[in-house]
């Protein structure tokens, strides 16, 4: 399998702060590779080094087999970059923004206009092509930023938190577009703190915390690695004061009440379920529902980074406020 991006012992230090600590990984050609981590974990610093926007303190990066520092022009010709904050020129029209982007990549004049039209139509901005980007909504600016990054048909696309803070429609459009681009052979490097987004889109993910990579694998394999803690969700007809009694059962590692349901973290569901049925019978309770929950990628992330569920919940809540992951 060909390698699209290779990172060797990459480190970035800002004064006394070690933002990225000796990370190494590879991204295969044609895959969507997710880079997960909480805010401040080092995701944006890494993507800036990978795209030649920031020089590494040490280590090496190759993109499309070109060294990003020593052969930066050749490497940059092959990638499209969508930064965390949309960076189109507010004073220019949507059309002019795309034409200018095409000029920087030396796209031929006739192709430039054809491509700009095609992308504006694809992103639903063609009717607004003559309007100043400064008058666009956040979602429209985001779409225009992505369109500008695609103007030269790059083989590798870097997306830094592409759906952060966007409305549902724009987020869904960007996710679908990411899938379509990937189907057409574009390698996508995606940083996000929306774990569900990475789970939906990525063939492989790397998890980063405090500048260090803690895991690189397929989402399903990462989930499987935490399956030692399976979850049974059960609800009874009389849910009052049962949490303590359930915790007194020898089997569960942990019991939490979620609404009218109880989540029991167990090592083996097949052994635990009969115990729960016995518990219901002995206490004169009826089981309304009983389900096993598979560990999510978030569970894997929590397990591997050591971040408390509360921290992840906060991250997630911030995300939910701004975008629904449909």
């Amino acid at each position, binding site marked *: 399998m060909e390698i699209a991006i290779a990172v060797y012992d990459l480190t970035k230090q800002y004064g006394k702060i070690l933002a990225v600590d000796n990370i190494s990984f590879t991204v295969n050609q044609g895959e969507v590779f997710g880079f997960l981590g909480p805010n401040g974990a080092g995701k944006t610093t890494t993507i800036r080094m990978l795209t030649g926007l920031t020089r590494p303190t040490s280590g090496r990066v190759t993109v499309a087999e070109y060294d990003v520092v020593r052969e930066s022009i050749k490497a940059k010709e092959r990638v499209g970059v969508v930064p965390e904050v949309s960076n189109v020129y507010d*004073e220019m029209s949507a059309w002019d923004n795309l034409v200018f982007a095409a*000029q920087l990549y030396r796209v031929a004049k006739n192709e430039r206009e054809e491509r700009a039209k095609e992308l504006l139509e694809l992103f639903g901005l063609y009717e607004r092509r003559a309007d100043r980007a400064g008058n666009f909504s956040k979602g429209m600016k985001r779409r225009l930023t992505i369109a500008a990054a695609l103007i030269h048909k790059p083989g590798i696309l870097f997306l830094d938190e592409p759906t952060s803070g966007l409305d549902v429609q724009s987020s869904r459009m960007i996710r679908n577009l990411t899938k379509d681009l990937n189907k057409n052979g574009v390698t996508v490097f995606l940083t996000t703190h929306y774990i569900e987004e990475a789970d939906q889109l990525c063939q492989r993910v790397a998890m980063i915390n405090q500048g260090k990579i803690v895991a690189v694998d397929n989402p399903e394999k990462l989930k499987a690695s935490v399956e030692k803690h399976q979850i049974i969700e059960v609800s009874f007809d009389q849910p009052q004061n049962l949490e303590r009694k359930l915790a007194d059962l020898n089997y569960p590692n942990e019991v939490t009440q979620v609404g009218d349901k109880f989540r029991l973290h167990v090592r083996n569901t097949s052994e635990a379920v009969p115990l729960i049925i016995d518990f219901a019978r002995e206490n004169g309770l009826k089981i309304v529902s009983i389900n096993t929950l598979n560990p999510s990628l978030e569970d894997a992330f929590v397990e591997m980074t050591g971040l408390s569920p509360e921290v992840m919940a906060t991250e997630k809540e911030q995300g939910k406020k701004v975008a629904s992951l449909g």
Partner: protein
Amino acid sequence: MVRAWADSLIKAFYIAKKDAKVYYFKAPNFTYGLLIPVSLYLAFSMAGEISSKLIVAGLTSLVMLFGTTSIEAVAVVLEKQTGTFDRLLAAPISLFTIVLGKALAGFFFGLILAAVVLFPLAAVSGTIVMNPLLAVIAIAFSSMAFSALGIVASAYAKWVPEAQMLSNFLRFPMVFLSGTFTALEALPSQLQVVARFLPLTYSVEALRSSIAEPAVTYTYILDIVALTLFAIVLLALSTKILEKRIA
């Protein structure tokens, strides 16, 4: 090699064109570029009579200096602040090409401002420019040197007010030390030495020479060489500063 250079120049031109569209050719910039030099001229003229040749050369140079540095000081730092500078950095362009593109926008702006001032002022004051071609060359090299000076301030600064302050710190002393509205020889000998380190000195001198002399003089050639060196050194310095700033 030649193709790579040509490619860089074309990209620099696109950046200049974009900057002109976004930042330069707006009424307030023209006003600012003209207002301060004219005010300075009035302040100088109140102190004593100035010959029309000194006015035409001095005012044309000052208009270019203030016009290019005012907007150039903002052009880079504003892009850094809004994040659009990353768009340029992510594109397959060297940092020097970006700096050159920025300088070219200021260069063209300076040319237009000089034309706006030189021709009407020469007509009104009855000044005959003995060698218009030499005047145009002097204007072109001056405009490039001043534009590069503005970029140094912009590359160094983190915020727009800091860039403006730096720019003022560089250009206001120059007005008084470069013999803009007086003969350079009239300055104390120590200040004459200082004047030789300032691009405005060479711009004023070259323009005076092209107004007064029909043919190329030795001084004129030295002035153009000095302005060229200023432009090259300041552009290289801007690139180095930016390289450190974004590292």
